[in-house]
């Protein structure tokens, strides 16, 4: 041993200088491997005579000692391993202290090697835990002494401190990386809404971070109870689209159990899926993707290298990615649902025949639908960003339109108005404006415009036509009445004259002309009345009158007609019935019409006219009832009797005369006066018509007429 030739004193100085150089080399190393190399090379350079130096680090997965740096073994294989429980250096690992073996060949654990001398093993310890061992060998037997032990232990101490420091930094850096990866993933979630792309990003990151060879993410298809692989990286084939039932394969297993799982050897595992029989997978780690306890998918990572197995530490890392993937799936589901709803409503708006426009709080158009473009002639691009009232209102309607808009920001408004198209033409529209609130915040308003131009035109046309009809009828009535007056007047006059001349045989024929003329006149008057009622031109002339007097008058007028068919006529009117306010002429006309009807359809029977006051709550009503024992009506006839030109049968009109308009007119007169008319009848059992009128008829409907009349 050449080094033993140095003197004792200079040896100490030499050793101290060597240790200083060694420490400097170790401290200036920045990675674990650099530290191992610095320690091994430094010792080798300083202490000539060590034939082999090796830094073995324990693999935490299996306890093997892996050669990370060596000196004196030029062709040492990279990551050369000594299995756990084998080799002399195992003892130092086991008890954490320095072991000296003066003659390795006599040691039971000796693995035959190039070196056949002595060996020192010094454990590398950090925080009381042995992480590896420095093996120093010499070709000679018993080549080491206390000085060697001292310098070797000093070097190992320095290296241990340096490794602890580097590992601390490494852990810090890894935590920082994990944090960044997490942030990156979250950023992806908000920017990339396409689910498979997000999940691909998640699995890419997980594979990188975990240092595994590949991985997959699957979504749980709730409807079919299956997992569908949507993102895959380096599992030996493109597994995207693969469907896995619950319990099928690693992801199927965790989807069932809802617990993570490590499978050391996939191809020997009972639960393996045939779908993965052709891929290079050795060990697998899988975890369910959960939102609460609800399964949304599964994630798996694989090692294809048989030397790599998963440990609990890897699960911890995987569990950092699983919630991100789960949230991504859930977000995508919610997003898809929201998009479907939005698309549904957008399609409603898009296809609506009603023009729809939405305004922001600044009254500017935010969007409008094709019906709006069509109705107002502005393209969406032209309308958006401009105040709505600038677009579709005119100087005339501006303030009205603005009032609508203002009001609609507060509450729903509904109305009819006239708006302007881009080409200047006007459109009549039904308008509905409603405020738009999202999550309690007022965002603007929505305006709906329904084109009613045609509707209004049709109404105007109809009104004009109706008015023209009424005017025509009025004119016709007048034009007919003039010659009719001559017919009625001359026939009546001739009756008088021929009677005076003694030619009485001509009187009946002249009487027929006269009667026919009167009937025609009645018909014309009724038609005119109806047309006036329908045109809304019939007016009420209200006056206060004595009821009894009116009834007596009506009774005396009707009596001859009633008694002509041998009917008994009974009038019942209380003496103190008093006065009422109404249109006397119309009430007389109605009662005479009812009595005239009864007398036509009753013979040798009874006809009654009854009057009474009825109190119903606070309102007093006058009841006029005309009762007969005549032929009566079927239910079907009763339904039609108040319709114009609806005598029970056309033959009836021929047999009994009358215009067929009297009841229709009476019904409308009653309604105008705030009352009504009812009928009770049965075939062969007579008919009873009941008119009910307020004691102050039409007072509410025609206050002005009433005042005039009273004054």
């Amino acid at each position, binding site marked *: 041993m050449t080094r033993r030739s140095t003197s004792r004193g200079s040896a100490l100085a030499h050793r101290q200088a060597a240790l200083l150089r060694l420490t400097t080399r170790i401290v200036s190393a920045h990675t674990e491997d650099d530290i191992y190399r610095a320690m091994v090379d430094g010792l080798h350079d300083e202490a000539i005579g060590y034939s082999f130096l090796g830094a073995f680090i324990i693999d935490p997965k299996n306890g093997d000692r892996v050669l990370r740096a060596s000196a004196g073994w030029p062709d040492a294989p990279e990551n050369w391993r000594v299995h756990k429980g084998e080799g002399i250096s195992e003892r130092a690992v086991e008890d954490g202290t320095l072991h000296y073996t003066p003659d390795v060949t006599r040691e039971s654990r000796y693995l035959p090697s190039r070196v056949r001398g002595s060996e020192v093993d010094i454990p590398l310890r950090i925080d009381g835990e042995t992480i590896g061992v420095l093996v120093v060998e010499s070709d000679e037997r018993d080549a080491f002494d206390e000085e060697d032990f001292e310098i070797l232990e000093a070097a190992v101490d320095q290296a241990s401190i340096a490794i602890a420091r580097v590992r601390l930094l490494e852990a810090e850096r890894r935590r920082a990386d994990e944090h960044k990866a997490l942030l990156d993933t979250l950023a992806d979630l908000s920017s990339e809404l396409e689910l498979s792309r997000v999940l691909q990003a998640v699995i890419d990151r997980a594979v990188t971070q975990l240092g595994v060879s590949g991985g997959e993410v699957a979504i749980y298809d709730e409807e079919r109870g299956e997992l569908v692989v949507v993102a895959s990286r380096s599992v030996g084939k493109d597994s995207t689209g693969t469907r896995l039932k619950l319990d099928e394969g690693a992801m199927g297993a965790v989807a069932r159990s809802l617990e993570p799982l490590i499978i050391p050897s996939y191809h020997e595992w009972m639960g393996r899926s045939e779908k993965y029989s052709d891929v290079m997978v050795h060990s697998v780690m899988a975890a369910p993707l959960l939102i609460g306890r609800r399964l949304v998918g599964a994630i798996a990572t694989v090692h294809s290298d048989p030397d790599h197995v998963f440990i609990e530490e890897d699960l911890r890392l995987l569990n950092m990615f699983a919630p991100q993937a789960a949230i991504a799936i859930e977000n995508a589901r919610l997003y898809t649902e929201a998009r479907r709803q939005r698309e549904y409503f957008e399609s409603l708006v898009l296809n609506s025949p009603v023009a729809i426009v939405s305004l922001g709080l600044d009254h500017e158009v935010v969007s409008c639908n094709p019906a709006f473009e069509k109705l107002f002639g502005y393209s969406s691009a032209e309308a958006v960003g401009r105040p709505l009232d600038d677009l579709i209102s005119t100087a005339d309607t501006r303030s009205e339109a603005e009032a609508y808009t203002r009001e609609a920001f507060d509450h729903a408004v509904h109305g009819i108005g006239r708006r302007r198209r881009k080409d200047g033409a006007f459109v009549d529209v039904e308008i509905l404006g409603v405020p738009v609130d999202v999550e309690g915040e007022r965002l603007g308003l929505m305006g709906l415009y329904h084109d009613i131009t045609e509707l209004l035109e049709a109404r105007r046309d109809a009104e004009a036509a109706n008015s023209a009809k009424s005017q025509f009828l009025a004119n016709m*009535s007048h034009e007919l*009445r003039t010659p009719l*007056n*001559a017919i009625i*007047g*001359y026939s009546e006059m001739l009756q008088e004259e021929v009677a*005076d001349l003694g030619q009485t045989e001509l009187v009946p024929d002249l009487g027929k002309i006269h009667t026919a003329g009167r009937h025609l006149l009645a018909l014309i*008057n009724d038609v005119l009345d109806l047309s006036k009622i329908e045109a809304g031109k019939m007016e009420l002339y209200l006056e206060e009158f004595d009821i009894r007097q009116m009834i007596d008058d009506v009774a005396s007028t009707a009596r001859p007609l009633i008694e002509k068919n041998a009917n008994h006529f009974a009038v019942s009117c209380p003496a103190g019935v008093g006065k009422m306010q109404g249109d006397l*002429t119309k009430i007389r006309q109605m009662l005479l019409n009812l009595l005239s009807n009864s007398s036509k359809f009753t013979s040798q029977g009874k006809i009654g006219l009854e009057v009474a006051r009825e109190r119903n709550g606070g309102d007093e009503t006058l009841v006029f009832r005309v009762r007969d024992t005549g032929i009566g009506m079927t239910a079907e006839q009763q339904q039609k009797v108040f319709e114009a030109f609806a005598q029970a049968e056309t033959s009836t009109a021929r047999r009994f005369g009358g215009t067929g308009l009297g009841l229709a007119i009476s019904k409308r007169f009653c309604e105008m006066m705030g009352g009504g008319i009812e009928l009770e009848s049965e075939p062969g059992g007579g008919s009873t018509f009941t008119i009910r009128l307020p004691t102050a008829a039409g007072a509410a409907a025609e206050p002005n007429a009433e005042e005039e009349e009273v004054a």
Partner: protein
Amino acid sequence: MTRILLVEDNEMNRDMLSRRLARKGYDVALAIDGRQGVEMAQTMDYDLVLMDMSLPEVDGWDATRQLKADPATEALPIIALTAHAMSGDREKALEAGCDDYDTKPIEMERLLGKMEALLARSGGAKP
């Protein structure tokens, strides 16, 4: 003999009513429009005027107002003859100053009743 002024533009109505009144013993003078009616009433002496309302030149309402505004004719009874019991025609006639009204076609008995009532009130003689 009671003198009646009939203001009526329709020839047949004029002929018919004047003949029937004459047969009842009235002395009937005829005017064919409102203007002529007013002139005749103001220049001649009549006991009663039967005034059609729809008249050319000056209508019956105007003619009535003119006669009622003239102290010489304000006491002359006027009966309005309206084409139909048109709502409003009666009120318009009474408003213009007519003393009564009747509707066409004329029912002789009814008209004679109204004429007699007015003549009695104004002290005019029965035919």
